[in-house]
């Protein structure tokens, strides 16, 4: 049994000038655990996700990550080279807009293969085989391997982005509104796929969403944000079935009315 967290977030705050982005956030994430960050627009979800994933320097606080050697490192005290290496091997980042996470002008195969080449794979045939396998896992047919994502639908692009991130076997994946721009039917299929992959691979994930249904389907635990603060935090079923904070109750009831 793994009895150590993968990630420790302590006292993370981000101010944009005098405006609060997020304030004094603390939590731990365990291996294989999926955490959803929910809240309405402007509540600070993206700000927090970016602070944790080192894409945005927090004003205060620390983020510690348990590296593959078992040692915790403060992500804001490792070298840029180490940080970038971590981001493209042990982490994934799935953007809401696939164009932000894909190279739109190279083929699907190269998009998936890029991380492999970045860590030194130098066998074209093997890279291509791995890319083919991963396209299959995200339900993109192998004969699309040489097409550019420009020729893909929104759902396919998002699945390609996921494959591109998972090819190096990361332990932690960040997702910001992964189903955001998609049609409802496409969303459902993508969520199924993500849930399956996360389970199969034992991934830990932090998923930002304003959609409580996404949180319900994907996450074990959730945090509710309002005005930059985490106002409620608990097991997903507990929070959704028995919300304690009036604001969370409001959020949940607004869903149930639909």
């Amino acid at each position, binding site marked *: 049994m793994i009895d150590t967290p993968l990630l420790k977030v302590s006292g993370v705050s981000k101010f944009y000038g005098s405006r609060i982005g997020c304030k004094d956030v603390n939590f731990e994430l365990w291996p294989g655990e999926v955490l959803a960050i929910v809240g309405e627009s402007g509540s600070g979800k993206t700000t927090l996700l970016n602070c944790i994933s080192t894409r945005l320097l927090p004003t205060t606080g620390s983020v510690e990550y348990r590296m593959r050697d078992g040692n915790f490192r403060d992500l804001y005290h490792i070298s840029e080279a180490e940080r970038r290496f971590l981001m493209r091997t042990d982490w994934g980042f799935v953007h809401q807009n696939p164009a932000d996470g894909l190279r739109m002008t*190279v*083929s699907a195969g190269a998009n998936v*293969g*890029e991380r492999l*080449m970045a*860590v030194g794979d130098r*066998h*074209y045939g093997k890279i291509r085989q791995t890319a083919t396998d991963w396209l299959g896992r995200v339900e993109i047919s192998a004969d699309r391997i040489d097409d550019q994502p420009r020729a893909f639908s929104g759902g396919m692009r998002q699945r390609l982005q996921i494959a591109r991130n998972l090819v190096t076997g990361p332990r932690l994946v960040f997702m910001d509104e992964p189903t955001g721009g998609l049609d409802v039917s496409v969303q459902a299929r993508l969520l199924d796929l993500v849930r399956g992959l996360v389970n199969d691979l034992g991934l830990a994930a932090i998923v930002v969403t304003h959609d409580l249904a996404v949180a319900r389907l994907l996450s074990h635990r959730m945090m509710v944000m309002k005005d930059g603060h985490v106002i409620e935090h608990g097991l997903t079923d507990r929070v959704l079935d028995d919300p304690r904070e009036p604001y969370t109750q409001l959020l949940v009831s607004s869903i149930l009315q639909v």
Partner: protein
Amino acid sequence: MTADLATYNFAYLDEQTKRMIRRAILKAIAIPGYQVPFASREMPMPYGWGTGGVQVTASIIGRQDVLKVIDQGADDTTNAVSIRAFFQKVADVAVTTHTKDATIIQTRHRIPEQKLTEDQVLVYQVPIPEPLRFLEPRETETRKMHALEEYGLMHVKLYEDIAQNGRISKTYAYPVKVDGRYVMDPSPTPKFDNPKMHMSDALQLFGAGREKRIYAVPPHTEVVSLDFEDYPFEIQTFEQDCALCGAHGVYLDEVVLDDRGGRMFVCSDTDHCEDRREHGHVGAMLAPNQEAAE
């Protein structure tokens, strides 16, 4: 000194500019393959005419030097002739077309066929120095990638090439890794010449005028062309021999002879070809019995 020369400082650039460029060159030599920014000057010729190479040559040339200038492999193209004339005018140096007699060779594409020596410097005119530009247009990002040795993108580019063409079809400006560290664009030389850069006895300097970069490969430095294990780097091969001198295993240019589809292949390095012919080598085109001598 002639009255003509008096209007110019030696080699056109003022001494302070030359010192600045020499400092950039020294830094480039100290960090093989690294692109050193420099304050590129206006030259009395347009960008694209080798202003980077000209500034490098102007900064290293001395009165005792013998200069050769080639464009493709030839000494007699407009570009080569005008750069050679420029240095005759502003530095009054001896010029030559013979590779073996030159101390400085400025080139736009080719590396001479004849092996260069430690007494020679090869100066390249470079249009686009950044090998990562194709996939990453942001300069801040490419600098970071060089600094952190993140070169996966170079292989992404080669991967695409194989996926589209069934092989690495890139034939010139073929990326290399210098001294096991920096990835460098030898642009725009044909990949045929890449192996000549490896462990060369001569100092190799690269000047990009418009992009304001200088880089270098010091003598005896490893220069390795990027590739895949299952798609190894290969140079172009030519089935024919040179029609004029019979040379084999050199870089050949196709020359159209008439409008009825007649053509021949000849050495792109014209000095090499002439030198061989002077030494009695004859190609099929010049051989009396239609049989290549050799």
